[in-house]
């Protein structure tokens, strides 16, 4: 059973990887990578790393791939494939990747790791191996420093991504910037959908438009109310 599952998911993983590099449209490459990642998670499960497999599916095939899908739909470039490079480049790439793959396979299947071949049966696992409890305990005790460094790295990456993808009004900001108090107060339209898609100025303009519309609507309703009151008074006067 394990063997069948292993070969099935290994074949799917390799096919997905080939699809990533062979498909023409980046969007299709992203979808092939999703297939590859799910098959890889299956392999992780076969290695009794349940938590990593779950994280792989949730974080990768879920969140990161959504990011990829959005960006590839946004950028939307098509037409380049692995055959469109120069012939020399392709030959060199094939040579390098092929020789690396051969060396890796020789090292792993051949004589390289004799300890692995002699080991025979794998050690029996304790209960809870690869579960969230074991990983959490290791992360917060022995590997606390790596954990903190990873969180710092994630923070830096998030800030960097926001800085990189931010829309600038005049290309790149030049020269030193002087920060005024008013810069700290968000202007109208900050954080809105319009700002994200059409820039800060458009968002401000839209916000100003909305404000003007509201003022006009208030004034019209006030005028209408005043007219109604006057009419009512007239009617009262006429009745009396």
């Amino acid at each position: 059973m394990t063997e069948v599952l292993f070969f099935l998911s290994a074949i799917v993983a390799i096919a997905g990887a080939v699809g990533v590099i062979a498909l023409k449209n980046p969007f299709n490459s992203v979808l092939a990578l999703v297939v590859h990642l799910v098959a890889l998670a299956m392999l992780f499960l076969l290695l009794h790393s349940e938590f990593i497999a779950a994280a792989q599916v949730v974080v990768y095939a879920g969140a990161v791939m959504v990011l990829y899908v959005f960006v590839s739909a946004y950028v939307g470039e098509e037409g380049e494939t692995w055959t469109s490079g120069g012939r020399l480049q392709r030959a060199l790439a094939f040579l390098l990747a092929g020789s690396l793959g051969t060396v890796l396979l020789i090292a792993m299947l051949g004589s390289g790791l004799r300890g692995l071949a002699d080991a025979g049966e794998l050690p029996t696992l304790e209960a809870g191996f690869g579960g969230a409890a074991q990983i959490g305990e290791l992360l917060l005790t022995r590997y606390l420093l790596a954990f903190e460094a990873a969180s710092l790295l994630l923070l830096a990456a998030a800030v960097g991504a926001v800085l990189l993808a931010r829309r600038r009004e005049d290309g790149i900001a030049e020269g030193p910037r002087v920060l005024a108090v008013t810069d700290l107060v968000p202007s109208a339209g900050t954080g809105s959908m319009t700002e994200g898609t059409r820039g800060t100025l458009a968002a401000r303009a839209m916000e100003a438009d909305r404000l003007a519309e509201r003022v006009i609507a208030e004034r019209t309703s006030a005028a209408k109310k005043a007219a109604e009151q006057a009419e009512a008074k007239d009617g009262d006067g006429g009745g009396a």
Partner: protein
Amino acid sequence: MSIVWYLAVSGILFAIGLFGVFVRRNPLVLLLCLELLLGAGNLSLLAFDRYHAQGDGSILAIIVMVVAACEVTVGLGIVVAMFRRGQAIDVDKTRELHG
């Protein structure tokens, strides 16, 4: 089932990813190929973790996933910035970093 099989699959996946990094020119697909490389590394880490049965390899695999996520966010930010400048989404045509 011996972990040598898993290591072999990991080696094949790594070679495929490396080939993709060499031949593709769309930075988006390059990032996907880097994912292939990191996934292959994770597979062999977890295989050795199964071999030693101590759980340390899982931690390293998680850190690799964190690094991959960081690389994705920054890389996709660069791709979006390139697109907004009207530059070609092609690493061969992107010759300068400034402007």
